[in-house]
């Protein structure tokens, strides 16, 4: 193996060295509980406050509108169940889309069992939710619309401004899961009609196990985790100081990168990757929207082969990638996202996602463009389908 090329940044990112350094003191030196009054506690409290500032600045929110959580999934659950339980006497209808992350979809499914009514909006072949579909779906008893900012599997960015505006116009709360988007594309909650928004540190070079929920001033939810009343009562539990500090630093670095337009460089490399693959490999298609997509995100389906085999062959070459193939999990249904955009099962099984990072280089892309076609070819040579 001549190279290690990690192209799975949608799954998780390495923690930036500067983030690790920012976190380190909070393990064994400034290790206090931020709720303690003594010097150790005050130091920790200060650090948490600073991190809240940094995260709020990334999305142009007020610091008091940010609560820290134990990850992205947790923040999704807090938002959706929190609104559901807070508003259940006003209505029990919730709208979501067919291609949400499971943290949203499974939460909605659970609420359905608990007596809520869920509408799942379809998407078009590019994975875009049509604002008109949303408008038609809203009812007098609709209490929440939850639609992600950008999709993790196919990279499509949603028309959030239009979707949110419809919600605001109809007086319905709008939550968006921005786990894939935040830190990578500009997000401004003062300009966008968003009431609640989920983020996760580990998708922007911060640590795993810490997320954040933006809760617009005035929006009331029921807490999911009750207890000591931390995070303004919305997420109890001793604050994960080091993790939160790491998130703060990661958010600050992401703000810098966005200000310097660095994702643009990622986008160019990514485009070279997409173009190269579609050129070199027959019977390959890009999944998701060609233009309205995350700058670091490329995703494909290759006919006649199966995703897990592809992944593992790439892994053997030092390339880290992912797939929405069912075989990666041993289940029979491929990713709900690929099916929702209308792909037949046998094509969806041949999916591959390559997601770039800030440190991905030209050489990394060359390496993939050199090796991926060979791997696809050798697997196709084994397949009972396709040309020979």
């Amino acid at each position, binding site marked *: 193996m001549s190279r290690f090329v990690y192209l799975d940044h949608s799954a998780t990112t390495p923690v930036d060295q500067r983030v690790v350094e920012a976190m380190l003191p909070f393990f064994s030196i400034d290790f206090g509980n931020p709720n303690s009054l003594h010097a150790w506690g005050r130091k920790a409290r200060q650090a948490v406050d600073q991190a809240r500032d940094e995260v709020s600045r990334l999305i142009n929110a007020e610091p008091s509108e940010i609560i820290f959580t134990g990850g992205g999934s947790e923040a999704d659950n807090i938002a959706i169940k929190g609104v559901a339980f807070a508003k259940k006497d006003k209505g029990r209808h919730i709208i979501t889309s067919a291609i949400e992350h499971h943290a949203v979809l499974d939460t909605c499914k659970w609420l359905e069992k608990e007596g809520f009514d869920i509408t799942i909006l379809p998407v078009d072949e590019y994975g875009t939710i049509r604002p008109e579909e949303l408008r038609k779906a809203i009812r007098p008893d609709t209490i929440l619309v939850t639609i992600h900012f950008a999709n993790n599997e196919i990279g499509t960015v949603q028309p959030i401004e239009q979707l949110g505006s419809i919600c605001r116009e109809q007086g319905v709360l709008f939550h968006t899961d921005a786990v894939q988007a935040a830190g990578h594309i500009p997000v401004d909650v003062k300009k966008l009609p968003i009431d609640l928004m989920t983020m996760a540190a580990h998708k922007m070079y911060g640590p795993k196990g810490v997320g954040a929920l933006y809760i617009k001033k005035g929006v009331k939810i029921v807490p999911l985790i009750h207890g000591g009343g931390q995070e303004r009562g919305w997420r109890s539990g001793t604050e994960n100081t080091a993790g939160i500090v790491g998130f703060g630093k990661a958010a600050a670095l992401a703000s810098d990168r966005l200000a310097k337009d660095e994702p643009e460089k990622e986008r160019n490399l990514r485009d070279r990757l997409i173009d190269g693959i579609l050129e070199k490999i027959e019977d390959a298609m890009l999944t998701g929207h060609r233009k309205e997509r995350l700058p670091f995100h490329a995703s494909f389906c290759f006919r006649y082969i*199966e995703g897990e085999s592809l992944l*593992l062959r790439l892994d053997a070459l030092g390339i880290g990638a992912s797939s929405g193939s*069912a075989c990666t999990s041993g289940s029979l249904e491929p990713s709900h996202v690929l099916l929702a955009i209308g792909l037949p099962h046998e094509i969806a099984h041949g999916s591959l996602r390559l997601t770039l990072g800030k440190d991905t280089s030209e050489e990394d892309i060359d390496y993939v463009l050199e090796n991926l076609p060979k791997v696809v070819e050798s697997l196709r040579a*084994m397949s009972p389908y396709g040309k020979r």
Partner: protein
Amino acid sequence: MYTEKLMQLFMDPKNVGRIEDADGIGEVGNPICGDVMKIYLKIEDDRIVDVKFETFGCAAAIATSSMVTELVKGKTIEEALKVSNKDVAEALGGLPPQKVHCSLLAEEGIKAAVDDYLAKKDKTKREASETRQCAKA
């Protein structure tokens, strides 16, 4: 999650391909489920003298295909039919639980190919005996 043995066979599978004049061909699985296995047998005197496979599926599917072809090669069809998915899994040093169905596919693939062979042979025999009968008549 996979054993080293399995990964080795997945990376470098044996008996890949097709046999153009196969005596038995078995195709099992379903592309909709993401796994299809096609087994080609060359049989002489009820003994498997050559075997090849084509597989659309995960690493476990490819490795079990390869393993099962190794296991049946040289065996009589009777012996081959006794090769179970457990034998295949064991020979690979074990399979993760959610991948056991891939080994079932391998077992079924052989059975389907042998069945095909037997059906063809039966037909040939019948045709042969019919011919003989005709000759007799």
